[in-house]
C-alpha cells in the first residue's frame, strides 16, 4: 500500500521511527514545527491508522495562597504551639499574634491533633500545651517546606508517613493546589513503523484531504432577493420609478383618500419628521380636488396644514400615485421598490424599516383576473408555485385581494402580496380616468422564505458568520 503524506506527517513519522513514544510537545521540539501543525499532523496520521495516541493525566502539587503563607510564617497550629510553649495564654493574648482565619484554623487543628487543652475561666478561655515535654510532630511542616522548593508528583508520598498529613493538608482551603495536565503520547502503529520515507513519491499530494472553508465576498442575501424581485418585475414588462423616502402627508395619505383622522395617520403608527413641513405639495388643482373628495366622502374640515406634515413614507404607493397624477398615462406598467417605515415595536416579525415593492397596471381593458395572472406568473418566476387568493381590505383599493403562498418548510399558507383596483375616490380627483390595478407587498417576507429565516431582524444584524454562510433553501 502506498501512502500520500503531507510534509508535516513525514516529519512526525521520521522522529517517531527513531524514538517510539513521544509527547506532542517533544515532537514539536524535535521537528521545529508549531504545536498547531503537530496536532493537525497527528490527527491526520491517527485517521489514516498510522499512529496511535494515548492520553494520560499528570497531577502535580504546588503551594496555594495559604500554603505560601505557612511557608513564610509557619502553619497556624505550629505558631500557636510556639506561643503557648512557655506557659498558658488567654485567647486575647493569642489573638494579638494570630488573627481571624489563622486563629480559628490554629485552634481547630491543634485541638484535632490533641496538642492543646482549653480551660474556661472567669477571665476568659486559656490555652496550654497538653504535654509540654513531648515533641510535637512536624510532618505537615515538612510537606510545606518540600513543596516550597519544587512542585511534586503526589505519588512520591505514597506509602510514606507523610501520606496521611498530605491528605489532610489538601483538604484545607488554598494550602495545596493540584494541577492536572493532559499529555498526549504518540506512537506509530505497525503500519506506521513500516513506512519507508525514502521510497515515498515526493511529488504526490493528498488530493482527498479536507480543506479549510473560504468565504466569498457577496451581495447581501436580502439585496439578492430585492434584485431578483426587481429583475422579475422588469421581465413582466414593468418599468421602475423611484421616489423619496420622506414624503408629504398629502401624497402618503390625502391623495389616497385616507381621512385626516384615520388611525393609520397617528403618531403611534407613522413617523413624522420633527418640525418639517412640505414647501410645495402639489398643483393647486390637485390640492383642490383632493380636498373636495375628502369633504364629500368623509364629511369633515380638510386641513391643508395637516397635509403638509412630512412623514417617512408608509408605503411606496405615494410614489406611484404621484407618477400617475402627474403623467396620467392611458396604458402603463410601472413599479416602485424601496424602503418604507412603520412606527412599530421591533420583533421577530416586525421591523420599523423594510422594503416594499408595488406594481401598477393602467389600461382600458385590464381586468382583476389579469392582475391575478400577472401575480401568479411573478410567483412562478421566483420559485413559488402554490398560490391562492382571498378577499381582503385596503383603504384605497376596491376590490382588494391578498395572495396566499404555500410554504413546505413551515407547512402552511403564508400571506404575501396584496392587490386591488384603485378606488375612484382616489383616481378621479387626480384626473386619472383609466382603471389602475395595483399589487405588491413586503420583500423581507419573501427573502425569509428563500433563506429559511424565522426572525426578520437577522437581515439587518449584519452578522458576518451568517453573511458568509447564508444559503438559499428555495
Amino acid at each position, binding site marked *: 500500500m502506498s501512502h500520500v503524506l503531507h510534509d508535516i506527517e513525514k516529519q512526525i513519522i521520521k522522529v517517531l521511527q527513531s524514538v517510539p513514544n513521544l509527547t506532542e510537545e517533544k515532537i514539536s521540539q524535535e521537528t521545529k514545527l508549531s504545536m498547531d501543525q503537530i496536532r493537525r499532523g497527528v490527527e491526520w496520521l491517527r485517521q489514516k491508522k498510522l499512529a496511535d495516541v494515548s492520553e494520560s493525566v499528570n497531577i502535580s502539587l504546588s503551594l496555594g495562597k495559604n500554603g505560601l503563607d505557612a511557608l513564610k510564617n509557619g502553619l497556624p497550629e505550629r505558631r500557636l504551639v510556639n506561643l503557648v510553649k512557655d506557659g498558658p495564654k488567654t485567647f486575647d493574648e493569642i489573638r494579638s499574634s494570630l488573627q481571624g482565619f489563622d486563629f480559628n484554623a490554629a485552634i481547630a487543628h491543634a485541638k484535632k491533633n490533641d496538642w492543646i487543652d482549653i480551660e474556661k475561666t472567669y477571665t476568659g478561655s486559656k490555652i496550654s500545651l497538653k504535654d509540654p515535654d513531648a515533641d510535637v510532630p512536624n510532618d505537615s511542616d515538612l510537606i510545606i517546606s518540600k513543596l516550597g522548593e519544587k512542585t511534586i508528583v503526589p505519588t512520591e508520598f505514597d506509602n510514606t508517613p507523610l501520606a496521611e498529613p498530605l491528605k489532610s493538608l489538601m483538604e484545607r482551603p488554598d494550602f495545596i493546589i493540584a494541577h492536572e495536565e493532559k499529555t498526549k503520547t504518540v506512537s506509530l502503529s505497525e503500519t506506521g513503523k513500516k513506512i519507508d520515507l525514502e521510497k515515498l513519491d515526493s511529488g504526490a499530494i493528498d488530493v482527498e484531504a479536507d480543506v479549510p472553508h473560504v468565504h466569498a465576498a457577496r451581495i447581501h442575501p436580502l439585496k439578492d432577493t430585492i434584485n431578483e424581485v426587481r429583475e422579475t418585475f*422588469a421581465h413582466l414588462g414593468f418599468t421602475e420609478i423611484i421616489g423619496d423616502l420622506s414624503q408629504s402627508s398629502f401624497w402618503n395619505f390625502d391623495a389616497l383618500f385616507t381621512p385626516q383622522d384615520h388611525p393609520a395617520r397617528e403618531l403611534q403608527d407613522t413617523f413624522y419628521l420633527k418640525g418639517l413641513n412640505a414647501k410645495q405639495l402639489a398643483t393647486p388643482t390637485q390640492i383642490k380636488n383632493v380636498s373636495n373628495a375628502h369633504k364629500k366622502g368623509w364629511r369633515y374640515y380638510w386641513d391643508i396644514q395637516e397635509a403638509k406634515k412630512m412623514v417617512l413614507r408608509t408605503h411606496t404607493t405615494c410614489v406611484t400615485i404621484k407618477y400617475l397624477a402627474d403623467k396620467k398615462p392611458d396604458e402603463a406598467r410601472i413599479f416602485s421598490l424601496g424602503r418604507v417605515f412603520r412606527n412599530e415595536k421591533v420583533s421577530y416579525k416586525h421591523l*420599523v424599516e423594510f422594503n416594499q415593492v408595488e406594481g401598477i397596471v393602467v389600461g382600458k381593458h385590464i381586468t382583476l383576473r389579469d392582475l391575478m395572472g400577472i401575480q401568479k406568473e411573478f410567483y412562478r418566476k421566483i420559485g413559488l408555485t402554490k398560490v391562492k387568493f382571498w378577499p381582503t381590505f385596503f383603504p384605497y383599493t376596491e376590490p382588494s385581494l391578498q395572495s396566499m403562498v404555500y410554504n413546505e418548510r413551515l407547512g402552511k399558507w403564508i400571506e404575501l402580496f396584496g392587490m386591488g383596483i384603485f378606488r375612484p375616490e382616489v383616481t378621479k380627483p387626480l384626473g386619472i380616468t383609466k382603471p389602475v390595478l395595483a399589487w405588491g407587498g413586503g420583500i423581507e417576507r419573501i427573502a425569509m422564505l428563500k433563506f429559511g429565516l424565522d426572525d426578520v431582524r437577522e437581515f*439587518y444584524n449584519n452578522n458576518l458568520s451568517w453573511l458568509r454562510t447564508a444559503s438559499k433553501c428555495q
Partner: protein
Amino acid sequence: MPVVELSLSRLQNLVGKKANKKQILDSLPFLGLDIESLDGNIVRVEYSPNRPDYSTDFGIALGLQGILGISKGILKLDVKKQGNYEIKVDNSTSKVRPFVTGIIARNGSLDNESVKQLINMQEDLHFGLGRKRKKSSIGIHDLDRISFPLKYTTTSRDHRFVPLNSTKESSISEILQDSEVGRDYGSILGQSAKVPIITDANGQTVSFPPIINAALTTVTTKTKNLLVEVTGMDKQSAEDMLSIVVTILQGAGFQFSQLKVSGSKNSTPNFAPRSITFDTDPVNKILGLNISGSVLLSCLKKCRLDAVMKGKKIQCTIPRYRFDIFGGMDIVEEVALGYGIDNLKPAWPASVHIGEKNMTSEKLDSISRLMTGFGFMETLNFTLTSEQILYEMANRDSSQIISVTSSKSQEHTILRDSILPGLLENLSKNIHETYPQKFFESGIVFSKGAPIKETSSLACVTASEETHFSEMKAVLQSLLRIGFNIKCETKTLPNHVFFSQGRVAEIVVNKKTVGYIGELDSKILENFRIRTKVVGFEIKLSGLIFD
C-alpha cells in the same frame, strides 16, 4: 386589524344546521376574515375595519348564511312606531357633543356569550368608527329601568350619580379623575365647564357620554329590553354606528321600536336602505368575466344585498349598515365575493410593455458587483438609526440632526446623514469573527434643505492589522475608473474628527469634493470597541454617477 373570538358550535347554531363546521371554517377567509388561530372549538379571526358588522358572531353568521347560500338577500328590518319613546335634545349640547340617536330593542335574551360579543363589538366600534369615542360612542341600557321621555342635555362637573360597576355616588369630576375610562377619554370633553348627560323623566342619570353609563341601567343576562343610544360629533357617523348595533341585535333576535329624537338639529334616525343602479357590462369588464344579469343578481344576494333587473341595468338595494359601500366599484367587489374569489381564474394579459430597471438602481447594482469583486461584503443598515451610533460614538457634529417624533424604539430616532458610522457598528458587532473584515454599503442619506434632501452615498471599510491608506485609495480609484470612467484625486486634509491626523484626505473629482478617505481615529475605534486598524471612505454618488 381588529380580532374577534368565536365559538364554532355557537356560530353553527346561528348559521343554521345545514352548514357543517368545516364548511364554516373554509368559508371564513372568503368573507375577508383571516383565521388567526384555531384551538378546538374556538377560532379567532381578524376582520377588516370597513366591516364593523363582523365584530360579533351575529354579524359573521349573517355573512356566512349568504355566502353558503343558506339565506340570501337583505335581512328585513322592521322598526315599529309603537310606544312613546322619545329623547329631547337641549341646545346646550351643540357646543360639546351635538348629536344623539338611538333605538329601542325588545323581547330578546342575552346569554353570557352574547353579552361578551356585544362588549367586544362596543369596544371595536369605539376604537375604529368612533375614533376612540371622539367621533361617536354607544351606550346600551336596560330599558325597564328608564322612564320616558329622556333628555340629552349638559350639566356641571359637580353633578353626581352612581357610575357603572360601582355602588357609590361620584361627581363627574371624580369620575374623570379617578376612573380608568375617565382618565382615558376625559380629554374628549376638553376644558368645557358643562358636560353632556342623558337623564330620564324622573331626573335619574342614564348616561354620561362618551365616558360611562349609570349603574342604574346595567345590562345583565336577565335583561330582556334594551335602550341603545349613540352620541357624537357628526349625525351621520352616529347613525352609521347605530345601524351596526341594530343589525347585530337583530341577529341576536331582538325586535325594534323607534326612539324619537328631536331638538337642536337632531332628528329621528332613518334605517331605510339606499339604491344604486348600474350597468352589468362594466362589472364584467373589470372582473374579466362574462356572467349574465341573473347570475349577477344572485352574487349580490349572497352578499346580503338585494338586487333586481331594471331593463338592462341592475338596481341594487343596500341596507343602512353597509355604509362602506361608496359606489360602483364597491358593488364590483360584492359581485366578486358573491361569485367566489376561488372561481375567478387568473388570466395572462397580452402586453406590449418592455420593462426596465431604473438607471439609479442599475448603477447601484454595478457598484455592488464591483465592490464584491474587490472582496468587500455588502451590509444593510437602517436609514432610521440612533443618535448614539451616528453622533455620540462617531464623535460627529449633530447640529443638523433630523429626527422623527414619538418613535417606539430608541434605536430608530434619527435619519442618517452618513453611512460610515453604521459600518463601524457592523465591525463592532463582529469583533469575534476572523479578520480581515471588509464591508461596504450603498444607500440613501438625508440632509436638511427645503425641507429635506435625499442623496445616495457609498461607504466602505477594511479592518485588519495590515491594512493601510493606500490599499483603500487603490480600491476607490479602481472602482470609479472601471465602473464609471471617472478620475479622482485625494487631497491632504489638515484634520477631520473621524480620521487620524495626517492620514485623511478629501476625495476630489473635477475640483469638487465628493467625499473623505482615511484611517479611522483611534478614539472612535475605541468607542466602537474595535481593536484593529480600520481604513475607509465615504463618497456621494448623487451628482457623480447619477443625478
